[in-house]
């Protein structure tokens, strides 16, 4: 066990898995000598060489397309998209190709590519360094979508992603890169995909969240506790395919659910969570499933703090659910 930041945990997972599995290669913009704009790949270029830590030209469609081709013939590519906001030029490769290879070839070809992308707000990045695009990928059949919220999970989930037989969109909450610190198990311990983490037990209301808003949920839960409300906080970790039992089990117990994420509300993942919860736990619900989310606007620069869901809005939603 060692204490480290989330970005160090990512870094460690990459290094350890590359050591373990010579098929792993990294590719992306500025990931080599520069070590990545967030330093996630620092030192790996020196350690594994320019052939396995590949600085690419500026073309995300090329990065993902190339990664797919590598994966088709036995490599295990991990592509870095510098910011999740710049993943859209690769959208066709992801939606039309990456997600569909196994299905369209009836399993003859598979593309176990991991796409890492710093996601979410909190660094005053404005429209294009702040977005949370998870819903696009969750809606795309054939992808795994993962977002850690702790260093230990970051390392363990990334290790699992690199070993998974299917593509994984691995979204890293950049606001937590250096602010989330914690104990991380030593080499080799993967955290399985598809399993949520109960962050905090409680019987009155369930808050379902992931990524950077996990700590918002914890803050709101701690405040609510002071007023006698026991909040259960679930960190999904794997967004899709999600841990349905953890969520439904909790809501059956508490009878109230708040879903919480940074991405815009409309057609966000919160909509799916709300839809699923009311489908599967209808008779247990004492209040509508509430959504606390980003606004349905482009991500703003000056008003970032206001845009991001916070403990205030989360507590309001909890209170509303309790008093419904």
């Amino acid at each position: 066990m060692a204490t480290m930041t989330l970005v160090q945990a990512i870094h460690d997972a990459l290094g350890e898995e590359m050591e373990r599995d010579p098929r792993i290669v990294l590719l992306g913009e500025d990931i080599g000598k520069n070590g990545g704009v967030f330093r996630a790949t620092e030192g790996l270029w020196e350690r594994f060489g320019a052939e396995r830590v590949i600085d690419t030209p500026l073309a995300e469609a090329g990065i993902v397309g190339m990664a797919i081709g590598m994966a088709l013939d036995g490599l295990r590519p991990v592509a870095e998209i510098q910011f999740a906001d710049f993943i859209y030029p690769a959208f066709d490769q992801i939606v039309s190709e990456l997600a569909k290879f196994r299905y369209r070839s009836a399993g003859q070809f598979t593309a176990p590519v991991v796409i890492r992308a710093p996601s979410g707000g909190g660094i005053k990045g404005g429209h294009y360094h702040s977005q949370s695009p998870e819903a696009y990928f969750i809606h795309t059949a054939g992808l795994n979508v993962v977002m850690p919220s702790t260093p230990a999970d970051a390392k363990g989930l990334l290790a699992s992603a690199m070993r998974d037989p299917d593509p994984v969109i691995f979204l890293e909450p950049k606001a937590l890169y250096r602010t989330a610190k914690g104990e991380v198990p030593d080499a080799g311990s993967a955290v399985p995909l598809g399993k949520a983490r109960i962050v905090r037990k409680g019987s009155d209301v369930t808050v379902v969240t992931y990524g950077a808003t996990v700590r918002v949920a914890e803050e709101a839960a701690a405040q609510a506790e002071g007023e006698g409300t026991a909040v259960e906080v679930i960190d999904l970790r794997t967004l899709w395919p999600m841990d349905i039992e953890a969520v439904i089990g909790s809501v059956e117990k508490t009878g109230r659910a708040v879903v919480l994420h940074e991405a815009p509300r409309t057609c966000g993942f919160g909509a799916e969570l709300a839809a699923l919860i009311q489908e599967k736990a209808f008779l247990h619900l004492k209040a509508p499933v509430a959504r606390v989310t980003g606004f349905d606007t482009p991500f703003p620069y000056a008003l970032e703090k206001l845009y991001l869901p916070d403990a205030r809005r989360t507590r309001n939603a909890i209170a509303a659910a309790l008093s419904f």
Partner: protein
Amino acid sequence: MELPLRVVLREDGSADPELDPGLDDEALRILFRKMALLRALDEKGLNLQRAGRIGFYIGATGQEAAEIGSGFALEEGDWVFPSYRDQGVALLQGYPLSELIGQLFGNSSDVTKGRQMPNHWCDRAARVVSVSSPVATQLPQAVGTAYAAKLRGEKIAVIGYFGDGGSSTGEFHAAMNFAGVFRTPNVFFCSNNRYAISLPVARQTAAASIAAKAAAYGIPGVRVDGNDVLAVFRVTRDALERARAGEGPTLIEALTYRIGSHSTSDDATRYRPAEEVEAWRGKDPIKRFAAHLKQRGLLDDPEEKAVFEEAREEVRRTVAVCEAAPPVPPESLVEDVYAEMPWHLEEQREWTRMPEKR
């Protein structure tokens, strides 16, 4: 400054000794038989579609020299990233005709479970990657596979096929540029059949040629007569050898013509003058090669007829077998999305079994 056009088969049926690849008689005969097979497949495919026995078909009539000439240059271990029109190349790679035709029917004779439209086949054993409709997406993938081979020190080449229209896509640009930078063992083979559906190539790009685009990526560009099977074979073989030898990628532009409509969904008479098509019919690549073989004494008229008859018969036989296969099972709808079936697809599998009304 125009790139020269590479030609082997001359007007009089002879071969330019300078560029003649020097194939032996058996190889020349195979080339001819495969071109005939491809033509026979097209005839059948179009008829099957017209008769409503398959849903769709895309032919390569008129482009057989480009298909067979380039495909024949491939060697054991090479990879193919095809477009929807490259069934000829796939067959040469060892993709079984029975699987290709099974795919057209999309029933249980289709090893890919009827998942895709006709002409969207693949074969892992033959290293022929799955066709997909979005134009040119295969090209950056071809670079990745080539990179993988290079990294492991394998001496193989990876060929990616696309059309004149495909050269306008962002994927073409990324692929060529990456291949140039990483010097991957790639060959990019453009079948410039003069049209992207209805758009003539002169309105696809203002460049002097597709091959001229290679300069933008620091790689060699080659223009070849795409109706000349020997010239196509020759330049493709050379490019593949360069690739395998670690000398980097090549862009080949094969100048040919799409005799038929774009696909069975298209009606080319809407946008193409009949005289233009007629003129190109006169340049039929199979007849052109036949003339050469005859001149070399490797073919005569009855034999020519027999080769076509045999090809048609093979296609007919295979169609009969494939067409008779049962449909794909309903539950297969939810398979192969992931390696293991997650809970939500287990749930959705029930939808395929739902009774008329509960």
